[in-house]
């Protein structure tokens, strides 16, 4: 197989094609609402790339998506479908928020405490679902949907407690202490012209991507989790405790969901509002995982891409274009990725290659 052919048949190339077609479909819908696609996409991309500040915003927007994407990707690789990332994100945010408001601790220590609390809360949320599955055989997709909503109202309940609640009239918590924030040093932000919310979050995301990669590909723990994911019976035959593996996989996945919430809160959020609707971070994480084909590096890049499109897409309002076009584009992209194996870019007719 020639190099060119290899590229043409790679999953990556297919993803690129999917993205291009996604934009084409988006363009059709823009035409329907009587907006010039060229103008809209110009706005979209100029909003992303116009200056270091907008770029840094894209990164800030991408950070929780990457981490959630890793959480979902990890679950995919270990044979569960973490549709509960939304709930883990919410409880993680809230745990970090409570610690960030109430615990008196110095800088550096406090963010670590917040993130640890978030990881613990997210992991707990994952373990509850795992426990229901292991103990009573309750379908995890069902309980995750339920626990997403329970997390939603739990967060609202906590945010409304007098000790946490904003003193002003905003329906939100107090801001977390300055010391809890993980923002980049002010001097860096000013000299590089970044946005004020630029934080260490992306570094945390990168570290987690590496951690996930190592766990999945390099460790005996990852081996046992994957074995259970691929073939529970054989794994048990081989002496792997499948129930324990399911719990561990959901705990790790949940912990990452929680950390995603914490980095978002300690970077850009500062506080948690009383929700009126689900924020859909969980589903956006699923998208990031799918674009990245559940591969940690792929998820990192996929998350960055999605974060940028999300940020740039929201700016479409400025020229009167509906920002929902982004959903059309991303939906189309995911749909095409799902069927991308039928695009067969071959230079000449040949027997089916080993490309998955």
């Amino acid at each position, binding site marked *: 197989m020639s190099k060119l052919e290899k590229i043409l048949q790679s999953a990556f190339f297919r993803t690129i094609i999917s993205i291009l077609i996604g934009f084409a479909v988006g363009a059709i819908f823009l035409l329907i609402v009587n907006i010039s696609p060229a103008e809209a996409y110009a706005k979209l991309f100029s909003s992303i790339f116009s200056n270091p500040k907008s770029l840094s915003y894209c990164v800030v927007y991408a950070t929780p998506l990457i981490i959630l994407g890793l959480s979902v990707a990890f679950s995919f690789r270990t044979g569960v479908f973490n549709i509960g990332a939304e709930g883990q994100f919410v409880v993680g945010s809230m745990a970090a928020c409570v610690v960030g408001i109430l615990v008196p601790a110095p800088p550096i220590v406090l963010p670590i405490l917040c993130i640890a609390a978030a990881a613990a809360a997210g992991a707990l949320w994952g373990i509850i679902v795992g426990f229901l599955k292991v103990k009573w055989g309750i379908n995890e997709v*069902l309980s995750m*949907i339920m626990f997403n*909503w*329970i997390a939603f*109202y739990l967060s609202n309940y906590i945010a409304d407690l007098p000790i946490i609640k904003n003193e002003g009239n905003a329906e939100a918590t107090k801001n977390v202490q300055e010391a809890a924030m993980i923002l980049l040093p002010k001097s860096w932000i000013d000299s590089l012209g970044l946005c004020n919310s630029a934080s260490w979050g992306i570094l945390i995301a990168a570290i987690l991507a590496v951690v996930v990669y190592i766990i999945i590909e390099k460790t005996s723990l990852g081996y046992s989790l994957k074995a259970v994911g691929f073939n529970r019976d054989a794994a048990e035959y081989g002496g792997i405790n499948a129930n324990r593996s399911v719990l561990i996989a959901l705990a790790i996945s949940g912990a990452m969901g929680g950390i995603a919430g914490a980095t978002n809160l300690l970077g850009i959020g500062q506080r948690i509002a009383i929700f009126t609707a*689900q924020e859909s971070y969980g589903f956006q994480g699923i998208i990031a995982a799918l674009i990245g084909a559940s591969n940690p590096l792929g998820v990192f890049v996929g998350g960055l891409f999605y974060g940028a499109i999300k940020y740039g897409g929201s700016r479409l309002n400025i020229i009167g274009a509906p920002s*929902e076009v982004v959903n*059309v584009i991303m939906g*189309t992209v995911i749909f095409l990725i799902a*069927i991308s194996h039928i695009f067969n870019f071959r230079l000449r007719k040949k027997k089916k290659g080993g490309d998955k």
Partner: protein
Amino acid sequence: MDNFINNLGILIYATLLYTAPLLYAAMGSCFSEVSGVVNIGIEGMMTVGAFTGATVAYFTGNPWLGFVCAGLAGMAFALLHGIATIQFGADQTISGTAINFLAPGVAIVTAKAIFNSSDTVPLDPSSKIPTLFAGVFSSGTPWSNFMKNVFSTYASTYLVFVVLVVVWFVFYKTRFGLRMRACGEHPLACQSLGINVHRTRMICVCLSGFLAGLGGACMTMATSNQFRPTSIVGQGFIAIAAVIFGKFRPQGAMIGCLLFGLCSGLRVVIGSSSLNISVQLLSMIPYVVTVIVLILFVGKSHVPAANGKPFVKTK
């Protein structure tokens, strides 16, 4: 006692109100799942149904035409899902997730194109799904209040139970139902008996989109009378949960939907009483109760054996 009768009436009213859209969607989900295709795109299909129903009814003034078009719109997206997963063997979860992003996006963008707003124009009473017994029962005594509340629900709610009976009949008493269930359990056996597995599954997925679309239309053409982006927020997933709860049987899904509706009604009744409980905690009731009931009474459900697995014809 009077209070009890009143509350009971309200509970039944609320249960029916919440159940109708969920149950349409849940029956849709049943079709798809038992034939072996996981359809988490129900939520998106409900959203386009909700939008299309409200829009067609607004322009034609005919609620039933709107209702049917809502189903067809849901079916159009189901067809996409079907082509991807059945014809091309795409991952069913991925395709469903894509539908959940694509469908609401298309609905809202189209709304903006037509109405220059993400909301549709409210329907006037004649283009809404009617209530069948409006004005039959007068209020006054507790029992007449009770009757009035119980029977003040929409035609679409009565229809959902008719549809349920039909669906149950199709599932368990017809040739198609037997074949469709067989396709979800052992597609290869079906193929060996000359049953066209792909076509059967495709029909089921299309039906699932149709019913999900009807469920969405229930929200926008009955309970409220316009489409808004918040019209469908999670009902599709609750419907899927109800199906798993009901062990992939339409009658079981009905129990799941009724339970969920009852709890939602209970929330309002308790919240209106003098009990001083945080409204946030009350709002959790439907979700917590569902999990508890699962633990206590339902437990493990038998997932159709071939559910989620693409069937590749041997050639």
